[in-house]
């Protein structure tokens, strides 16, 4: 199901339940990593591009896939699957997408399986991590949104990058 559709369902429910209109003040870019859906606040996102040639960096931390040339800028590519301890895809050659994020000083890019839509959420609907959430995900997740039939995990961009940096 399309995210936006799912979104609308949720709003409608909320609206009808509370009789109040919700302000959609949280814009997230959503993407998939192996069937799990994630979201990142759009304010960090600079670019979305298809995976191109990656230069591996020897001796780099394991979640760093390498460096990429993005229109003249050198961007460090982080393998999100690896970072979130999700097993590598069965089909090693499947295509991936890159989301370029900017956290102030440097540009990084996250390698994801599939990019979905930019969806609007309401901050009110933002919920804390459920206790049943995987440890690693809990660390890097800011919270979740409930969708029809599934959970959307909102990732903490800064943590992902800083965490990697500290190593």
């Amino acid at each position: 199901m399309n995210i936006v559709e799912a979104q609308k369902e949720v709003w409608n429910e909320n609206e009808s339940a509370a009789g109040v209109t919700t302000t959609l003040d949280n814009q997230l870019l959503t993407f998939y990593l192996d069937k799990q859906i994630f979201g990142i606040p759009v304010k960090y996102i600079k670019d979305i591009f298809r995976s191109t040639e990656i230069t591996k960096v020897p001796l780099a931390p394991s979640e760093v896939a390498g460096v990429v040339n993005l229109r003249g800028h050198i961007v460090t590519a982080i393998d999100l699957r690896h970072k979130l301890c999700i097993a590598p895809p069965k089909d090693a050659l499947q295509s991936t997408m890159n989301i370029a994020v900017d956290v102030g000083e440097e540009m990084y890019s996250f390698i994801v399986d599939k990019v979905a839509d930019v969806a609007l959420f309401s901050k009110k609907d933002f919920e804390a991590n459920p206790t049943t959430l995987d440890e690693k995900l809990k660390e890097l997740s800011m919270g979740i949104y409930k969708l029809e039939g599934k959970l959307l995990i909102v990732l903490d961009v800064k943590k992902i990058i800083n965490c990697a940096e500290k190593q």
Partner: protein
Amino acid sequence: MDDIIQDFLMETAENLLQLDVDLVALEQDHNNTELLGNIFRTIHTIKGTCGFIGLPRLEKVAHHGENVLDKFRNGDLDVTPDAITAILHCIDTIKEIMAYLEENGEEPEGDDTEVLAELNRFMDEDLKKTGKSDSKDDAEEAKLPCQEDEAPVQTEETEAAVAEEDPFAFTPTPAPGAVFNEAPAEVEVSQGLEEPIPKVEPKEAEGKEDVAPAHKTELKKKPIKSEKGSSLATQNIRVNVELLENLVTSVSELVLARNQLLQISRDSENDEFKVPLQRLNHITSELQEGLMQTRMQPVGAAWSQLPRIVRDLSQDLKKEIDLEMIGADTELDRQVIEVIKDPLMHMVRNSADHGLEGPQERLDAGKARKGKIILKAYHAGGHVVIEISDNGRGLNKERIKEKILTNALVTPEQLESFSDTQIYNFIFAAGFSTAAKVTNVSGRGVGMDVVKSNIEKIGGSVEVTSTPGEGSLFTVKIPLTLAIVSALIIRSGAQRFAIPQVSITELVQASEESEHTVEYVNSHPVLRLRNQLLPLVILSDVLGISEPKKSQPALESANEQEQETSRDKGENKSIDCGSSSENIGDDQFIIVAQVGSGQFGIIVDEVYDTEEIVVKPVSPLLRSAKLFAGNTILGDGSVVMILDPKSISDKVGEMHASSQELLQNEKKIDSPDERRMRFLLFKAGDNAPKAVPLALIVRLEEINANDIEMSNGSHVLQYRDRLMPLISVQGFLEFEPDVQKSVLVFQQGHEYVGLVVDEIIDVVEDKLDIKMNTSTGGSYGSMVIAKQTTDLLDIDYFIQQICPNWHSMLDDEMTGRSQENGTHDMTVCFIDHCTLYRNLIAPLLELQNIRSLTFEAGESALAYLEEHTMKVDAFILDKDSLGKDPEAFLKSYKKVFSHVPCFIVGAHFKAEDEVLFNKYECIACLAKSDRDSIITTIRDYLEQARNVAA
């Protein structure tokens, strides 16, 4: 209001820097009116502006300073060090207040009574002259008395201002600048001039009118000033640094794009583009160069504060110090100047504090009273070199050595082998300070290592040399440009990398045929490069990337190599029998990199091209992989990492250090305990490795078992027109037919003996360190070679087993059997207490047709020779074998053999030794490890002697 303060701060900061320099210069040159004028004007400007903007505290301080300066000008006060110090304090106070102002937007609380009192001391001395009241009170009143003094000054300024076309954009020093854009109502503009004047009170305006006639005279008096002002004004422009940085970045991108285009054009056939591209190329290069120039500042900018510092230091330390600066106009990138300012300052402080002696000490030492520190800057080969030298007491080598040992930075043995320069360079180690006292100037031991790391951060290097009693010299080398560098693109594994050209000295291809070969020392690969051994690093190993391996049929190449080995007696060729490194094959590219004062080689898979690349810093995420100095985008759009040779060498540090040791040993003479020799390692009979000194072996051969024949009950082989007896370690020979066997061939005269072995392992160089003496015949004992217990075989024993009439060239005692059927043209007596050495020298002498009589000890030699009245042409004495009393031996030797030349060989000579030997006219103290040169020297000498005699 903020803008005005900002501008004021910026400009005044510049002026204050200049003031420091000028004041120190003034101290040396008391009567320089121009200097004095400049100084006065600057302070006056500051004072005025402060009043105008509303900074009373600053104004007060400046005013007091101005008063004293005025006294100088009038000749009322002499320029004494104390007075200058007072003014310098005044300036320091101004700086402090300004710093606070910059941060907080307003002046700090408090007053400056101390400074003011200090300044006033000089004022008090001569109050009566002008009848002015004491200027302790508030600035307002103080202004009045100074009116008359101010007026003419202001005219000068205005006149300078007149000469300018546009005071707002141009800022000549020290005339009033863009600060005074507005002329608020309260300021009366004198003489109807539009140019703004420093704060003027209504009362003073009257004074101004009087000035009008004076103005003209002033003009006449100092026409030079205005001309200077105007020409200076038009030449400089103030530009925001950020703007420049953006420009530089854009041009860098332009360079990248141009590189890309050039790449494409090279590959494409399309001629249309070539010409315009050429132009574009040319223009871009010019643009790049020009822009780089804007970032260049004269290195004098980094030196500007030094005169003041040295002056203060010389006062504090009560030493007389002269600072000389040569080449201050040498240009450097401004970023670099920022970075080296502090290190330079630190080094100068060190020279002043530790290097230079006090005046009395200097006089006692016969030097001039004044110590000198010389700063010299010049361009040399893509670098800027800055030398800081002093003529003080130099570095104290002994103290440094002590400190090294106390801090346990190296072992005492290693320390022995270091050259003086290496010892001196230890001062750059962290936490190192030999200062007995810690002063507040230096001595805390946190200085020099920070200096070194800061300089190395920008790709530079720093070294020190010193002569005790005469002084020290620090040399700082910095690359000229930071952003765009020339780099060599190489491949290691499946990836390309870039190495900055500055660190590369040479590119070498090592192969069997060339003069550059890869050898193994302690199973570490090293490169023999023109008689130097450089430690080698395999890049793919360091990076942890696997490479597509070329398979090498081990036996085949081993064969080839063995052949060559036997030809050259195993010197200078490698035997790669698959043991340590299968990665190093033939035709490897080796990049010789220079790191600090050392060199090492990096083995790469392929070398492509050199390219100009824009260095982009690595992202923080990748900083943990310390090997990279940055990354860049090549002309084809791909990203490559830029390697940092220094980090590579650090990473392989351990190996590097141990190889360095070996290098030392190669270059220098072995210490007596470590006699290094080459051994051939092989297996025979069992799996335990065995060794034989390589020098004894003449050839290595591979034979087919079928060729072994029987003769007289022993195994022989037809070899070079002779029958060569074969022996084996086990005592018997057993083999299957048609199998390849390795044979070590030994020679004496024209006779050969072959030792059959199972497998040849390697040639290693190691110290002769017999750990365990086995009493079984056939072995000298056990050694540890390449971490394995190895039997050192006594070849003699085996040979004699099978060939009793083998004339053993390996003596034990005093027997020196000559070969009856050989012709010897010379006889030499060789004295060395080490059996093995005797065994090594003797055969070499034999080969030269020199008969050798070998003895274990001096006395026995003399005794024997006397008894047998033998004629000896020369003596070779091992320095350590002369018994307990070398001098006694030499005396007695000389008595009998006074006409016979005596050569001393040894591993390690001290000065006393040389004195002793010279006394007894011993010739040539030779290095023991270099057997060949010993032989040649002796031979040549004897030949010469004979020719002379004949």
